[in-house]
């Protein structure tokens, strides 16, 4: 989980790393955008070899929610 948060946070340029925890509601972050969503999809593809869909991102609220999706697909 910690590694996932680190990878997730690495996609962002302006948001403080300390803002990322398992309970962060990532879509509320100011820097969140549709392009950021694509970066996260690419990160999951590269780091975990898992293909997540738009639906997975839309249904997830927190970083942990998304981590659970990735884990379930591994």
């Amino acid at each position, binding site marked *: 989980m910690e590694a996932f948060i680190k990878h997730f946070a690495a996609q962002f340029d302006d948001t403080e790393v300390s803002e990322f925890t398992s309970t962060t509601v990532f879509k509320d972050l100011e820097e969140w955008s*549709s392009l950021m969503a694509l970066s996260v999809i690419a990160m999951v593809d590269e780091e975990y070899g898992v293909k997540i869909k738009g639906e997975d991102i839309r249904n997830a609220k927190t970083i942990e929610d998304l981590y659970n999706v990735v884990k379930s697909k591994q």
Partner: protein
Amino acid sequence: MAFLSVKNTKITGIGACVPKLILENKQSSLFDTESLAAFINGTGVERKRKAPADTCTSDLCITAAEQLIKDLQWNKEDIDILIFVSQTPDYVLPATACVIQERLGLSTDCYAMDISLGCSGWVYGLQVVSALLQSLDKKRKALLLVGDTILKFCSESDKSTYPLFGDAGTATALEYNENTGKMYFDMHTDGSGHKAIIIEDGGFRKQVTESSFAMHNRGEGITSNNLQLILDGMDVFSFGIQRAPQSVNALIEHFQLDKEEMDYFLFHQANLFMNEKIRKKLQISLEKVPYSLKDFGNTSSATIPLTMVTQLQKDLQSRHLKNIACGFGVGLSWGSVYFETDCITVPDLIEI
């Protein structure tokens, strides 16, 4: 996996035609200054062409084809095959290829039909035409016309489609030739993703009703009706970065091609962010991967030939090239092709 190889087919020319009207994304009311910069950085699209209401894909393709036929000094009587690949035909019926046969003045002995594919369309079309050329009794010539006026399907208040797409038509000339190398193909389909890029109403599953015209808010900055294109950018992205590299690698491996020997890798121009992910995954250097996104956007099935005409004209005209092209998108449908070109005819880009 559908691996196919075709011999005796030579690409002898490629031409393209775009509408005159340029839409600058920096003038779009869909963005503020900050989001405009993010959009242009992400997609790579600064401007694109838009066809007026009275210009169809067929008009663009016919203009490109007429010039190409002239430059090749082809006799129209020798054109036995005409394939039109588009998702923006003139009519629901008849097939646009029939209309084009008459307008181009081709023989009534001409084999003509439409193929309804988008982003993968040029690769699929190339396979169909080259296979058809083998079964002709008199081995002669074929025209592959590929393009879309996809902006006609995009809502002006949809920032996920309207600023991204552009209109273009292309023509590829092919001839039967026994002294040419083989073309190799790797083709795929996954209909489970058919809703990732879709126009819901207006076909026969959901015929047009009054409610088809109702505008729906589908997310921030995305308002469109059910007769307009809906794009699930995340699904398409996830699909593209996985399937395009897989297909190119499968093609190289199956047909034992030497990746380093390739002069160019021609990808469907989806958007810069996705295409760069694909390029980096395949570890191909930037010089081998031309882009036409900046000035023309994503022109659906026309992207690969349009990129060749606008970015590689001199190289295509003057030397022998080994190329791999990969189209991927709506369907979902994707495929890759290895083909060689040898000093082919490439007229200047035409604007109408």
